[in-house]
């Protein structure tokens, strides 16, 4: 592991978190609007929307760090015909542009509702294609440990898991700002906060299940290939990097599992906003660290067919 690979850890994690947050926010806004009307839904979600783009921009900045010749970075989209890396960058840039455009349009209420909706849908679809391309980048015949379905599945799991928990934090922060500006009881906002965090915690626990089922299946599948190169990767995962692997499992279990359940319990009824906030922060930080460790392992246990 070197600076270059840490740059890729940062890029993939931040990009996936942005896409997940964007899609999650769309779903939350849709239901919030049904429940409490457009004005309350906007008050609840627009700060979170504005926070997504800087995260994506930071991801791209990190990705440039791993280039030996950053001055040529613009050339990264010139081989769309055969290179998934070119496609990844193209869809990533498109997602960033559309997401930014939508955030500005929504924030300033520019254009009709239908037009904004179209931009949001486009950004969400491009975001999904972006994460899909990211997975394809690693599915090379010379990389048996990466060239499995586990790569795209884990990328999408990270996308949704970090997206959901980042939104939880954004909603908690937004709520405290709303309260500070208007100390009177913000009943509608309070209800939206509880409802959304309850659903975030449900999604989180489900995704934890997906992750915990995927890991043994992945290791078993790699072992079953009988490829010596693939076996190198698994033995590094449980040998040399065993401590990191264990830490990752423990952290994601505490963050998404235990904190997820506590989040759900505290979101059931109003009056426990402080505890709610703490569990939302805690779950996010623990899962973020766990996912970063997981992605570190992804690169660190790379095993290539080469000389």
């Amino acid at each position: 592991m070197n600076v270059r690979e840490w740059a890729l850890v940062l890029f993939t994690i931040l990009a996936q978190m942005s896409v997940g947050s964007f899609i999650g926010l769309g779903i939350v806004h849709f239901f919030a609007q049904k429940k409490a009307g457009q004005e309350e839904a906007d008050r609840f979600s627009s700060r979170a929307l504005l926070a997504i783009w800087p995260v994506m921009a930071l991801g791209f900045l990190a990705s440039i760090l791993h280039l030996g010749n950053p001055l040529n970075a613009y050339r990264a989209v010139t081989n769309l015909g055969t290179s998934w890396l070119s496609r990844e960058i193209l869809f990533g840039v498109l997602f960033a542009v559309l997401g930014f455009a939508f955030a500005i349009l929504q924030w300033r209420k520019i254009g009709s509702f239908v037009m904004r909706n179209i931009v949001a849908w486009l950004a969400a679809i491009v975001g999904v294609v972006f994460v899909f391309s990211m997975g394809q980048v690693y599915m090379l015949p010379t990389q048996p440990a990466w060239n499995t379905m586990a790569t795209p599945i884990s990328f999408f799991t990270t996308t949704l898991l970090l997206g959901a928990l980042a939104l939880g934090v954004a909603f908690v922060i937004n709520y405290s700002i709303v309260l500070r500006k208007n100390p009177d009881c913000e009943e509608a906002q309070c209800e939206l906060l509880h409802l959304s965090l309850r659903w975030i915690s449900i999604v989180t626990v489900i995704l934890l299940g997906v992750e915990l089922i995927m890991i043994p299946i992945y290791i078993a599948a790699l072992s079953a290939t009988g490829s010596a190169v693939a076996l190198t990767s698994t033995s590094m995962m449980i040998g040399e990097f065993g401590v990191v692997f264990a830490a990752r499992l423990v952290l994601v279990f505490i963050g998404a599992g235990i904190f997820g359940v506590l989040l759900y319990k505290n979101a059931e009824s109003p009056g426990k906003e402080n505890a709610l906030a703490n569990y939302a922060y805690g779950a996010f930080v623990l899962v973020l660290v766990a996912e970063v460790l997981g992605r570190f392992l992804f690169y660190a246990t790379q095993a290539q067919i080469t000389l």
Partner: protein
Amino acid sequence: MANQLAFYFDASACGNCKACQVACQDKNDLPFYLRWRRVVSYGGGGWVPHDQYEGIMVPDIFAYSVSVACNHCENPMCADVCPAAAISKRSDGVVLIDTDKCIGCRYCEWACPYGAPQFNEEIGVMTKCTFCEDLLAVGDNPACVDSCVMRALDFGELDELQAKYGKQMIEPLADPSITSPGLVVTPHKNSQLAGEGTGKLMNLPEEV
């Protein structure tokens, strides 16, 4: 009609002297850590039961060397995956990196099964064997071919070399179906076929 140049390597003749590797570094003025051509040692084996006397174990070990550069593959995966379209294949089959176009992402390094594209730390871009295209252009042989004291290296048209020496590929070279390499080998008497190896790379850490 030239369409796919290839290297020929005779494993039964190679004495692991590394003259080809050094000639390549010298001709291309490469820094020490860049080895566009490398000589790797592959070996294995162990103690096996004696074929006549029960209870007696005897050593049965093997080792041989393989010299490998870029194989200028028929399906160069490095060129397919390069996001900057910096790697191209000429009509004579030679695969070249345009260092002016390279962004230094090192993705080709992940894709190549032969370790051919190598990162030049000084200029921040990928470099690799050019088949000594400048020498070919004036009718000379690649530097590695001419340097080989055992005459274990040669080059020519892939189909002609295959017609003469066969299509077998030996360990530790990758399964040729991945990229269809422009490489033809004559096996060493102990060579194991690619994909059926029981040995491992034996080079010392300071060697590779």
